[in-house]
């Protein structure tokens, strides 16, 4: 390992600033009592946060986003869990094509997915709303969930499942007594991260929600009017804090399992 490189260190820190500072302006201005987001700050206030409580549209949008997010993350994690198991466990013909097909939503601009879903939904004569949005989110979250779960399952020692079969458990018993508890940190991480992806997703929602706005749709509508901006800032700040906490929790869970695995591995080498 090389020793030190201060130029690179300074550059890296600047890059971190580039990543973080813009996002931090949202919470900063959310406490400013002016209507414009400009310097100098005019005074401290929490009224924009108070204002959020009074908006029933916001509450509806929040509720819609939670509903979509919970369904999308649960369904996509379940689907992805089976798929991840197949890829991590078996070798079979058509493996690469199947993997490519499931990862495809990741490799297609979202607007195209949105537009094609819009066309089929209207062609089938269905009403736009949260259902097509949820379907789109499931499609979009599945590759993410699968990547997270494959990372988890790939290091999994499949002889544990064989040991369970050998000790008299059938396939279901093995799944519930051995696989599920061991996959659990990965499953929770996948649920949390899929929920966040769905919760923040805008383009699919924009094309498919019709009149039932999700939270990003609500914010989008508010961003157009300067006088409504401050409470969007407050909402944004809340969302940023909330997402950060969930993501940190997910990362922690993911590493929790992997840390254990590493420790075990270390002991093996040690002896």
């Amino acid at each position, binding site marked *: 390992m090389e020793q030190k490189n201060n130029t690179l260190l300074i550059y890296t820190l600047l890059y971190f600033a580039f990543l973080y500072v813009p996002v931090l302006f949202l919470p900063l201005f959310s406490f400013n009592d002016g209507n414009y987001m400009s310097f100098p700050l005019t005074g401290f206030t929490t009224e924009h946060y108070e204002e959020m409580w009074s908006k029933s549209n916001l509450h509806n949008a929040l509720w819609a986003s939670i509903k979509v997010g919970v369904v999308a993350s649960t369904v996509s994690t379940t689907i992805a869990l089976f798929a991840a198991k197949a890829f991590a466990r078996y070798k079979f013909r058509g493996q690469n094509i199947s993997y490519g097909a499931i990862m495809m939503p990741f490799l297609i601009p979202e607007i195209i997915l949105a537009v*094609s879903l819009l066309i089929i939904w209207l062609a089938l004569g269905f009403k736009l709303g949260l259902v097509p949005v949820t379907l789109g989110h499931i499609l979009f979250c599945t590759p993410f969930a699968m990547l997270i779960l494959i990372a988890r399952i790939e290091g999994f020692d499949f002889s544990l499942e064989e040991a369970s079969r050998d000790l008299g458990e059938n396939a279901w018993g093995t799944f519930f007594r051995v696989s599920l508890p061991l996959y659990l940190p990965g499953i929770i991480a996948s649920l949390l991260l899929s929920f966040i992806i769905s919760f923040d997703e805008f383009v699919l929602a924009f094309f498919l929600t019709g009149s039932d706005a999700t939270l990003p749709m609500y914010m989008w509508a508010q961003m157009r009017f300067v006088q409504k901006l401050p409470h969007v800032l407050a909402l944004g700040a809340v969302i940023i804090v909330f997402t950060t906490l969930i993501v940190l929790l997910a990362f922690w869970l993911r590493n929790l399992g992997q840390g254990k695995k590493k420790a075990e591995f270390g002991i093996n080498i040690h002896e």
Partner: protein
Amino acid sequence: MLKALKSIYARSEPAKAYSLLSPALILVILVMLIPLTLMLSFSFFTQTSFTEINYSFTVQRYIDFFQKNLLVSLLIKSIKISFLVTLITLLTAYPVCYYIAFYVKKNKMLWLVLLTLPFWTSYLLRVFSWKIILGTKGVINSSLINVGLLNEPLTFLMYSETAVIITLTHAWAAFALLPLYVSLDKIDFSLIEAGRDLGLSRFEVFWKITLPLSLPGIIGAILIIFIPTVGDYVTPALLGGTDGRMLSNMIQGYFGKINNIPLGAASATIMLFTVAIVTIAVSYSTKKLSQRMS
């Protein structure tokens, strides 16, 4: 009979694999492949009135697309913006990943989490925060005027191609950082030491060892940035103005106010092909490159 089937199933790995995969494959077929096929067929129809579509086959929409200078120039502009964003992101992110992979010893995971954390915060809000920064009464302009360096706000900051490029570079950074870091971190440091030992200079070691070995990460980053940015809608809509408008904004128009679904479908299809061509070209040239190296 059932028992025989069951035992064949128990013996067949592909059968087990595909039954595990079936929910995901059904999802992809129903929610992606069939809709995409339908979109493709709609691109061959004609919008006759606000609500009616003539379903007879015609390639007229594609002719329309290439005859409309606006659409072609938006396509070219989308590709150009995407290309610049990809290039800038790669160049700026590479040294950061290099630093973390080779110089950071303790808490690497923490650095990595910190790098990817902003990506998980709402995309819309990240784009919006640039509106706060670049706006006419935004952070940059108001600060510069306050300090007395400016009398008038800089107008080129907002509603321009530059604004779109800066914002996209920020918004998709995490996507470049992860594959780059993973490929750099995989490099066995003794290879680099061996290079130095065999008499290569630092620069030569980078050029002949580090860079080629990190190629998979570079390719991954290129695809993973180019694809979403070429079809990005939010950033140009919020920050692009007329100067920074991209093809997606037009597509949205065809499905919205303008209401020409077939032309919108044709435009989306053309965008999909652009993405496919870039993906194939990039993967093909990687294959060639890695063949030449080995």
